[in-house]
């Protein structure tokens, strides 16, 4: 069973507020999933190399050249709060 401390920590990492009810639900859900995914322990994977990418080619990299125009106005169009064409957020220090 997952402890209260672990759930608090997970909430912190996930950047989520969890009510007492949420915490109980999360404890229940994560514990269930952990019990289930623990079946992977049956597998002997001692000498297995972890596989991140299945397609055996390298990532494609391109030169870092700007190809688009300055579209600041478009970029801030979706922002919940904008001041002087910049994203506005609450002050982080006085």
């Amino acid at each position, binding site marked *: 069973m997952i402890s209260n401390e*672990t759930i608090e920590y997970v909430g912190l*990492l996930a950047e989520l507020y969890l009510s007492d009810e949420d915490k109980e639900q*999360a404890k229940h*859900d994560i514990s269930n999933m952990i019990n289930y995914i623990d079946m992977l322990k049956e*597998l002997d994977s001692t000498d297995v190399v972890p596989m991140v990418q299945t397609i055996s080619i390298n990532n494609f990299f391109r030169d870092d050249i700007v190809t688009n125009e300055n579209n600041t106005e478009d970029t801030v*169009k*979706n922002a*919940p*709060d904008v001041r002087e064409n910049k994203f506005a957020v*609450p002050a982080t220090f006085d």
Partner: protein
Amino acid sequence: MHNITNYSITELNKKIRNHEISVEELVKETYYFARKQNSKFNCFVSFIDEDLVLLRAKKVQKQIDNGELTSPIAGIPIAIKDNICVKDSLTTCSSKILYNFKPTYNATVIEALENAGAIIFGKTNMDEFAMGSTTETSFFGVTKNPRNSQHVPGGSSGGSAAAVASKACVCALGSDTGGSIRQPASYCGVVGIKPTYGTVSRYGLIAYASSLDQIGPIASNVTDCTVLLDAISAFDNKDSTSIKREDYNFTSALKKDVKGLKIGIPKDYFEDGIDDSVKEAIYDAANVFKENGAIVEEFDLSLVKYAIPAYYIIASAEASSNLARFDGVEYGYRTKEYTSLHDMYKKSRSEGFGAEVKRRIMLGSFVLSSGYYDAYYLKALKTKALIKQAFDEAFKKYDVIISPVAPTTAPKLGESLSDPLKMYLSDIYTISLNLCGLPGISIPCAVDNQGLPIGLQIIANQFNEKDIIRTAYTFEQIRGDFEKISSEENTISN
């Protein structure tokens, strides 16, 4: 009534070129049927402004008439899953946190479709951030299965599959991270393709699990799906995992011929939890191939049950990282009251994400946290390597593997979300393809005793889309019209 959206892409293309119908008329008709079916099944999250789209239709008509546009999809209206960015149009991922988001750029697939003359007209419903197998986790309400509205359409591309199945439109794009194109296609009785990882650009697809996500087509038949696949497949320097392939001409594989084709059936896919009707349908399909000259054999794939735990660890880990960007600063939902910047992030996220998304972000944060990383995340990557080896072995012997798409037909609405683990288990046959980067197609092969469609999955090795297309096309030619197979009481009302 035989409405215009009942025709295939190929037929409509011919009608447009013969001036039997104009692109404008086709677009108008599509809006009419899409709205009508949407009121019954809730397939769409939003429609793109009809007046603007009609202006584009006129322009496309001119370009077709003067020979500038020669693609078979020129003038064809296409619905787009709501996690694919369409410039200046709502793109919400069916989430409250993106309820008002209008991208400032097009996804590469949208550029490709528009360059070919296709008409983007609507955005389809989905599970929130593609996390779910039923389209019930959408912030904008559930989509209903057009074959039986008491049942789910599958997910996460449930809106796209239901739109095509209800003839709201001819074709749609979906995305597939663990089966999200193939499973709803199966539940709704339409065709869906998940391409080899890296074949279709992910640029502008709002990421769920980047190492597993692929965009793919959904349509009523194999030919239409393949025509769409041709149009969206290309190398893209905006996607660092995009692959330069030698040949994108998938339509050349549309041939009725399986003579000598070696087909494997994984015996261990048929052990637990599979409906008898599904099992029978797949073995019946195997017989069809045998009768037409294919060599069909059963084999042990092994490691089948380990795919789901490995998938949920990897997908959740990537999701927790990908979804960290949603914080109420640059776009989307921001909470009304907050005391500090950090409080604003946390409140916006807590109020903006739904239960299933939070569940996966938390699981992902957990498996990546220090002390658990090796035991879970690293172990999952090793399991993925072992599963890939098992498929590599299988493809030494077989050209394609056939299997069910899902262990059952579409469950009833409201039955799945109460037990997430049970819902996850329904992905058992589809997720290993994402883990291994393999291409797969879902094609309707039968109906169960309730008249609900059963899908056949055809799997090939990486880059061998042509094998699955040829196999599926051959099956479809022999099967005949699926709508006729679907029972009468189950006919979708127009």
